[in-house]
């Protein structure tokens, strides 16, 4: 039986969801707009929150580390021990610099939220995508500058092409998420309509939460389906089991991975789209450092620095991913007491996060968000 949701409660939940979505969108847009700027004609009101001393301090630190890199690489030419300093600086820079390409954090966080992934997976994805970013940067500079001795103009064009491809990937990735999540969301909407409890009632993912518990061990608590657990008990038994796996391709594994799943090939395959989407676009900072190191005849030091930068970046992105997943889990737990509305609320957030990825991709691809364009100058 699904109790009716009072109009007030529904309105409250809807507005909370919208606010949350706006909040996430805003934070993510800030990222996108502020990252790789060159351009960005009009970004109204993007300024106020940055005025704080903390941001200023972070910026100052980051610039400080970055600017020390060139002198340290120079020093490493004559003094081998300077390489250690370089590695430390690169690591620190990576942490402060956070996600190299601006959208990385936003895409990973949105993906995790939309797909009900665990914090653990978030960490794994962050590290994998940062590693890929480092490799792409090294490949670009290694092939174009080192092997082909191409000019900055050529290199920058290659960077630009990869960038467009990465935006297209984000848009595609977002489209797929929206398709999958949109259907789930609509189903959740239908499920909250007051309908008789028996006979062919449309139902949503509650069943899965429960089904999972049935099939497996109750101690398996890696994930966030606590939110619909209670309702699922009541709900599930009213229906037939065979409906369970007809929904979408995520259904079979939407519970968050067991450690086995995470390590297994299926686990990686599932996150691969996210890793590729985020990781294909290298950080401009890394490319600059690599070319500089190459010019000094210390390409290997540049490579080491790039990996350390990636490690630092991964730590920051992983922290943000964990925060995103925890925030969503807590929101899920809090809304769990609200019966049908709670599930709707969660589907709402998921759908919002999916839409966000699509919006980023489209915005970046069609130049509405000009901020992140690589400019060859």
């Amino acid at each position, binding site marked *: 039986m699904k109790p009716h949701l009072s109009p007030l409660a529904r309105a409250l939940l809807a507005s909370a969801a919208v606010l949350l979505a706006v909040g996430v969108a805003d934070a993510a847009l800030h990222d996108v707009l502020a990252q790789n700027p060159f351009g960005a004609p009009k970004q109204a009101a993007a300024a106020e929150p*940055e005025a704080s001393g903390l941001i200023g301090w972070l910026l100052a630190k980051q610039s400080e580390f970055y600017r020390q890199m060139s002198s340290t690489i120079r020093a490493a030419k004559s003094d081998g021990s300077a390489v250690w300093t370089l590695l430390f600086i690169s690591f620190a820079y990576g942490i402060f610099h*956070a996600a190299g390409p601006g959208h990385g954090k936003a895409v990973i966080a949105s993906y995790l939220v939309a797909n009900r992934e665990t914090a653990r997976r978030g960490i794994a994805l962050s590290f994998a995508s940062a590693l890929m970013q480092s490799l792409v940067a090294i490949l670009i500079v290694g092939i174009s500058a080192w092997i082909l001795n191409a000019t900055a103009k050529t290199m920058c064009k290659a960077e630009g092409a990869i960038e467009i491809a990465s935006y297209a990937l984000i848009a595609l990735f977002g489209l797929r998420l929206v398709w999958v999540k949109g259907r789930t969301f609509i189903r959740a909407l239908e499920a909250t309509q007051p309908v008789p409890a028996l006979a062919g009632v449309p139902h949503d993912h509650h069943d899965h939460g429960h089904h999972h518990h049935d099939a497996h061990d109750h101690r398996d608590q890696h994930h966030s389906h606590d939110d619909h657990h209670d309702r699922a008990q009541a709900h599930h038994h009213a229906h037939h089991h065979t409906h369970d796996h007809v929904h979408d391709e995520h259904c079979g594994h939407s519970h968050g991975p067991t450690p086995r799943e995470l390590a297994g090939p299926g686990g990686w395959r599932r996150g691969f789209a996210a890793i590729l989407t985020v990781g294909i676009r290298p950080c401009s900072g890394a490319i600059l450092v690599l070319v500089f190191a190459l010019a000094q005849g210390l390409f290997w030091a540049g490579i080491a620095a790039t990996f350390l930068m990636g490690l630092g970046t991964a730590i920051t992105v992983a922290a943000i991913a964990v925060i995103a997943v925890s925030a969503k889990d807590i929101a899920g737990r809090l809304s769990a007491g609200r019966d049908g509305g709670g599930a709707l609320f969660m589907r709402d957030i998921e759908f919002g996060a999916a839409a966000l990825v699509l919006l980023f991709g489209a915005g970046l691809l069609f130049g509405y968000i000009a901020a992140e364009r690589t400019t060859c100058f």
Partner: protein
Amino acid sequence: MRAWLGLVLAAAMMLASGAAQAHPHVWITASSELLYAEDGSITGVRHAWTFDDMFSAYAVQGLESKKKGAYTREELGPLAQTNVESLKEYAYFTFAKADGKKERFNEPVDYFLDYKDTVLTLHFTLPLKNPVKPKQLVLEVFDRSFFIDFQMAKDNPVKLVGAPADCQMKLDRPSDGTATAQKLNEQTFMDGPNANFGMMFANKITVDCP
């Protein structure tokens, strides 16, 4: 209550992801000259922008030079052209207001690059579309998006070339904390769409000619 807790969490998330956002990748040390005609009107701006050594190394990567590690003005010619052509999209990061009215620039002339002590300096002149003779001219040099960090040179950051004797020049550097805070407030709440992050890092040159 619960909704509020959720919102607080969302806010925390925003802060966390917003924390380390804008970051410059290119540093430019700029010195600028304001060019005056004989009748006291301003005809344009001449910039000399020195890039940081990392970006300089990147920019000269793959360029042919007769002598290793040294580049002549001629060898850097094509790069200089690319530079000024690309800068157009960003309005040359130079924004002029004559008595509060926005002024536009024509395409750069007399541009070239030189390479000295491992850094590149881009020289170029921006002619004003219409020479002006305002009581007050405000010239700002900055990147709205803060990909480039502009800093005016320590020595002789701004020169008035051929200006009437009674003109007074004032330079506000972004590193001046109080000026930045005040500017940010004003710009944010009064200018609306013009307000943005890079504003905090604007170099503001004000010339008053009574």
